[in-house]
């Protein structure tokens, strides 16, 4: 049976689909967070060099990776909206950006709290840290620019350009630890193998999937409000039981 994917690009059908999917992703996120925190904070052994401060990586690494990945997805949706003039893509970009921004903030905050006991400083103007801070500001710029233009379609186009141009920053963050001399270490998870204890790997992977499920749930819930707001004059919105 072929699924007609274009059907779901209509805001009215996606509104219903997002409403069905969001609770599942939220439930998955809750279970995985509970498991990931239990393994990461309790089961995994103390690190020989970093002591217990290393446990911060279980929230720091997933939120850092996702802050970059979500940015690229936001830019992708914005580009789709710009090229094909599809309404839903722009709405998805707007729905996803706040979660990405908050992940970037958590990445910076937890990085500082890990850096103080490990490096001896909360912050340095290093390539990796600075480019991640710029990512956080790019998210804020995208959200603020979109909010400052009254006509939603014009807001979509203007902020799409900003977020697309800004995506050049993502490879800069990713490769910064290789291109420049920085205080931040490179990846521990490499194609050649993972130099990490098994329970630590499990905790990291579980927390990563938890953050992913959380981000999807938040995006779906947020996009539902955005769809309603933009389509409020449409008959299908007026007919919704929750709007009566």
């Amino acid at each position, binding site marked *: 049976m072929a699924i007609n994917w274009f059907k779901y690009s209509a805001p009215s059908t996606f509104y219903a689909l997002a409403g069905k999917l969001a609770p599942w992703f939220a439930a998955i996120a809750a279970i995985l967070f509970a498991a990931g*925190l239990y393994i990461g*904070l*309790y089961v995994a052994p*103390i690190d020989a060099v970093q*002591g*217990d*401060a290393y*446990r*911060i990586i279980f*929230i*720091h690494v997933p*939120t850092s990776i996702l802050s970059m990945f979500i940015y690229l997805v936001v830019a992708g949706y914005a580009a789709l909206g710009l090229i094909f003039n599809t309404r839903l893509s722009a709405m998805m970009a707007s729905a996803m950006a*706040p*979660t990405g921004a*908050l992940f970037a*903030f*958590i990445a910076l*905050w*937890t990085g500082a*709290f*890990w850096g*103080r*006991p490990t490096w001896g400083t909360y912050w340095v103007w290093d390539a990796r840290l600075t480019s991640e801070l710029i990512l956080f500001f790019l998210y804020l710029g995208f959200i603020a620019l979109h909010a400052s233009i009254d006509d939603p379609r014009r807001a979509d186009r203007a902020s799409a350009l900003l977020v697309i141009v800004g995506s050049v920053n993502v490879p800069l963050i990713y490769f910064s630890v290789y291109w420049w001399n920085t205080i931040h270490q490179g990846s521990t998870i490499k194609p050649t193998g993972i130099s990490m204890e098994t329970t630590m790997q499990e905790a990291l992977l579980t927390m990563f999937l938890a953050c992913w499920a*959380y981000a999807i749930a*938040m995006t779906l*819930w*947020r996009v*539902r*409000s955005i769809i*309603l*707001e933009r389509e*409020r004059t449409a008959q299908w*919105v*007026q007919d919704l039981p*929750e*709007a*009566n």
Partner: protein
Amino acid sequence: MSFSEFIDMHGRAFYVWGSYGMALLVFIVEIALVVHKRKLTLKQIRMMRDAEGEQ
């Protein structure tokens, strides 16, 4: 590992709990904002319709 050892994190309690505490706070605030936005949007739709009905 005892409960007090778990809380103490071998002297790193401030950093570990400061990180996870902030993450938790951010998640709670985000969920609250999303729920609030939903309520506000539905309220606006009802108010708009009521305003049109009065005309």
